[in-house]
């Protein structure tokens, strides 16, 4: 029975798979030997990388079987696989994986992958994969299943196994074969650590790690790979590999244990995929490939139908697609050119802005403050940051000179006269900001955009004293500005399309993802976080032990617990955020006197010598205790979890009803990009739907159908 018949259920599924074909050509080597080359090619342009769906795998398997027959007939001496220009393959076709209707069908997919890729194990002749370009997930597993691998020096830093970041495991042999090829510690790095940091390998690393046996320059990569393969076939080249011997095996369990601990502390125990991968990696220490593959089969079957995988794909699409085409953005053509930038304020935030605008827009940036000393200090600081970038090789000397030359400081606002874009980052005080904008309006053209980085004030109010309020827009960054990818672009009732478009295009040019929000308190990220943190503080003020609060929030899978988050954003800022939200929505948001008191003493989290949080500081416990009323009733963990979930569902529903953003997707996008909420929860709303919070609170769901795996 052929592969197509064996996997009839997959082969006959109704599908819109873009098939990556397996084209076979023969190449004659200098030795006279013949290598059959399979080229993977979906015959689309470079915007559509090769992907691997069920029909692709079947065709690849059929091509391999045909070559094995030719090998048996002594017609060929080797089998090689490579991809169309720039790509081997970008991995499994996730849209096809997502559409698998039930666990039984899902279970076939890993089996099909193993069945096909294993044809490269004992093919009768040596098998090679020439890793010519981008090679991810199932693409890299093609290579791992072959006998030998070469890699193109010019391949992009896009080689790796990103599966666990998407709620899957490398289940077409990756989790089993890689540790036995490159050793346990490096395998853990490639399979677990890198994907969770969104980090992939470049060709040099692929070679150094021992994933590829040889590396060749781009211009003659295939030619050299063939010559090398020929020399392997003739025995002229002997391939040396890392020995996975007793020494390696002795450290195996310890390395897996360390990885597990590190995962638990960084991610918590909610995400399934990394732990399933760890289980397989631990098990394959004995080198039992069949046992490893069986575990991969089982893990993938479970994960493909998991809610976490489906939420991850939802999140992946938000970040990859929706973030690039923001909802509600006006025509790009309306955007006004930004040829000079003015920054009001010379504090830390303003300096971060200056550096970002300089680097990304490469236009003159002028910063201003009331006091020349502060301006000079800021300029000096920014120069220092540019020097640091140069030291790290991120900018060359010419660019460093250019950036410094573009930067100037002033105490005279008339120097803003020819700025097209002015952004203020002064103290959060309404009249101060109003006056500054009014003063600037005296100098700039009528078309210049005035942007505010306010996080807690009304953008409309900030522009209230202007002759041209239509040019005002909120442009809310997240700290640290250079790292966080989100900007909330706040549209007031007066903001015109040209201004909004300028803000969106500017965000894009700054390499940020922008989401358009209405001018409502806290916009998106701060409002959702205020709900969470306010509830957390309220709970401890009701006598709930801190540990119980942490426990109750754990299922959300947030990158850190509420108190560590408060410590990170700063207690003073946290207290201010809670206060402003309480002021705006007193019936739904708790202010926290305890937090204000903690902020005054600046004490909450106890840290170890490395600065890692250890728990709640004893003094903080005492302070909080003072605010617990006599008649307080502590929450149980379960009640508080429901309070968290329902509170978030309620608030997000209100935000959507109030058109704060265009759709639930935008809330999730903001929480993922602005607060690092996890893919496996889909940000917030898929999680709230699947735990029943949405039903409990408003009798429906954010998503219909829900973002979840099939239930049979």
């Amino acid at each position: 029975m052929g592969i197509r018949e064996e996997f009839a259920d997959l082969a006959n599924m109704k599908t819109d798979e873009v098939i990556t074909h397996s084209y076979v050509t023969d190449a004659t080597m200098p030795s006279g030997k013949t290598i059959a080359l399979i080229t993977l090619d979906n015959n689309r342009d470079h915007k559509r990388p090769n992907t691997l769906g069920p029909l692709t795998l079947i065709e690849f398997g059929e091509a391999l079987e045909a070559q094995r027959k030719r090998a048996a007939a002594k017609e060929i001496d080797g089998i090689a696989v490579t991809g169309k220009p720039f790509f081997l393959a970008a991995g499994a076709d996730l849209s096809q994986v997502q559409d698998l209707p039930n666990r039984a069908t899902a279970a076939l997919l890993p089996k099909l992958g193993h069945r096909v890729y294993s044809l490269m194990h004992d093919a009768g002749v040596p098998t090679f994969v020439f890793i010519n370009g981008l090679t991810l997930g199932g693409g890299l597993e093609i290579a791992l299943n072959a006998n030998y691998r070469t890699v193109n020096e010019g391949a992009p830093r896009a080689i790796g196994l990103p599966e666990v970041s998407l709620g899957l495991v490398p289940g077409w042999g990756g989790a089993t074969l890689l540790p036995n090829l490159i050793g346990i510690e490096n395998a853990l790095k490639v399979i677990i650590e890198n994907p969770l940091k969104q980090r992939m390998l470049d060709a040099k690393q692929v070679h150094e790690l021992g994933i590829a046996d040889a590396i060749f320059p781009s211009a003659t990569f295939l030619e050299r790979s063939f010559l090398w393969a020929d020399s392997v076939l003739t025995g002229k080249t002997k391939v040396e590999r890392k020995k996975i011997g007793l020494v390696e095996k002795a450290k195996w369990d310890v390395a897996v244990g360390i990885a597990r601990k590190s995962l638990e502390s960084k991610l918590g125990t909610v995400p399934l995929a990394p732990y399933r991968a760890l289980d397989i990696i631990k098990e394959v220490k004995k080198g039992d490939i069949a046992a490893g593959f069986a575990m991969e089969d089982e893990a993938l079957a479970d994960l493909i139908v998991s809610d976490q995988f489906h939420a991850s794909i939802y999140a992946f699409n938000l970040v990859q697609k929706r973030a690039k085409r923001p909802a509600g953005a006006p025509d790009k053509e309306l955007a006004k050119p930004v040829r000079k930038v003015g920054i009001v304020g010379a504090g830390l935030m303003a300096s971060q802005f200056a550096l970002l605008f300089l680097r990304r827009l490469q236009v003159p940036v002028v910063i201003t403050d009331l006091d020349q000393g502060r301006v000079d200090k800021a300029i000096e600081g920014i120069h220092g940051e540019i020097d640091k970038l140069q030291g790290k090789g991120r900018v060359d000397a010419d660019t460093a000179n250019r950036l410094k030359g573009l930067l100037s400081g002033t105490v005279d606002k008339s120097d803003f006269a020819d700025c097209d874009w002015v952004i203020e980052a002064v103290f959060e005080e309404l009249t101060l900001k109003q006056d500054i904008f009014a003063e600037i309006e005296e100098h700039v053209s009528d078309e210049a955009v005035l942007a505010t980085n306010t996080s807690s004030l009304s953008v409309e109010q900030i522009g209230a004293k202007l002759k041209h309020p239509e040019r005002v827009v909120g442009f809310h960054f997240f700290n640290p500005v250079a790292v966080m990818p989100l900007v909330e672009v706040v549209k007031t009732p007066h903001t015109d399309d040209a201004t909004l478009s300028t803000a969106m295009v500017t965000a894009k040019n700054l390499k940020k993802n922008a989401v358009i929000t209405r001018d409502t308190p806290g916009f998106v990220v701060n409002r959702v976080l205020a709900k969470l943190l306010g509830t957390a503080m309220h709970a401890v003020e009701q006598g709930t032990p801190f540990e119980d609060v942490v426990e109750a929030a754990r299922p959300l899978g947030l990158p850190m617990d509420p108190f560590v988050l408060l410590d990170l954003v700063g207690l003073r800022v946290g207290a201010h955020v809670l206060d402003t939200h309480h002021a705006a929505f007193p019936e739904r948001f708790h202010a926290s006197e305890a937090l204000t008191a903690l902020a005054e003493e600046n004490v909450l989290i106890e840290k170890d010598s490395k600065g890692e949080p250890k728990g709640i500081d004893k003094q903080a416990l005492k302070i909080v205790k003072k605010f617990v009323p006599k008649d307080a009733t502590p929450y149980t963990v379960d009640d508080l979890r429901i309070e968290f979930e329902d509170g978030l569902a309620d608030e997000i529903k209100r935000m959507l009803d109030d058109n704060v953003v265009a759709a639930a997707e935008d809330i999730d996008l903001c929480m993922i990009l602005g607060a690092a909420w996890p893919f496996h929860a889909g940000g917030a709303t898929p999680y709230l739907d699947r735990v029943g919070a949405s039903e409990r609170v408003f009798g429906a769901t954010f998503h219909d159908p829900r973002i979840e795996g099939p239930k049979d």
Partner: protein
Amino acid sequence: MAIDDVVFVDGVRTPFGRAGEKGIYWKTRADDLAVKALQGLLERNPQLPQDQIDEVAVAATTQTGDQGLTLGRTVGILAGLPITTPGYAIERMCAGAMTAVTTVAGGVAMGAYDFAIAGGVEHMGHHPMGEGSDPNPRFLAERMVDGDALIMGKTAEKLHDRFPQLTKERSDTFALRSQQKYAEALTRGDIQADLIPVSAYSDEGWRLATADEAPRPETTLEGLAGLKTPFRPHGRVTAGNASGLNDGATMSIIASGKAAKQHGLKPRMRMVSFAFAGVEPDVMGIGPIPSTEKALRKAGLSIDDIGLFELNEAFAVQVLSFTDHFGISDDDPRVNPWGGAIATGHPLASSGVRLMLQLARQFEQRPDVRYGVTAMCVGLGQGGSVIWENPNFKGKRK
């Protein structure tokens, strides 16, 4: 007098492909062909100090698109030569690569270069002959050239007119021998020795080009006799007795004898002299006659001193006009012993170096031969010739 010998150290080429959609290089860039040839050349000459390459001269007839942008510079960068290595582009139609060699040879002789790269590329699939050209109307209005001068096949027909003794039968016989001699050389492995394999993308998978695509070993006289004469009704020039439309690249290392010796690079040929000459554009095929006479004169040699001829077979009749002129018989074994462009193909500006690398191989096999010539005709009425001395010569010196 030159201050130093100019030597040909080594030369390589890509397999030549057939031009057009069905050709193996249809989806391969022209500059990549040149890059692959250059990388192959560098790989097999590891002693060559890359930081002492003083020039990269790369020829192409049509210098736009993937053959544009100062090929010598782009190819050098893309092939990974040090960024300090300069380069330029050369254009003399079919004699591009030959001119690249003679031009850098002049630089070597001047003492300006120790090592230089010279080669050519033509992707006639991507750049059909005459692409984008805009001939000055004065050429025709003032009858400066015949209208037929711009169509190479018509210039070949005109050679048949001028030399009635050069019949179609003689042309066809010469063409048949070209195919046969090429096939024999291929069987001996002579041709492959200087071919650099090229991976070529196609919609049906990557292919590894390891052999020329154009040769037709199955050619017969009868077959040739029956071919159409596209340039004239009842004419004499056919696709069978002319070179075809092809894609390919060639590269060579030209050096001063001193520098080659210093780095342990054995010269395969020593340049004796070179010359270019002009003729009436409508009989451009006779160009190599005056250019060879000139080169011989400058070298103080006569045609009888030449033991091997590598003549570019743009058209059989055009080669025969040369041999007839010098009293050399049609089947003289000194002429194109491995066949010529009628079999291998003629990717215009790349062909000059193909003649040289074949002559260099033949020199190795023929220590009895002291001098050889590489010569070719050029559109718009030119000829180019280079005379080479065989360092392996074991015979008696006069």
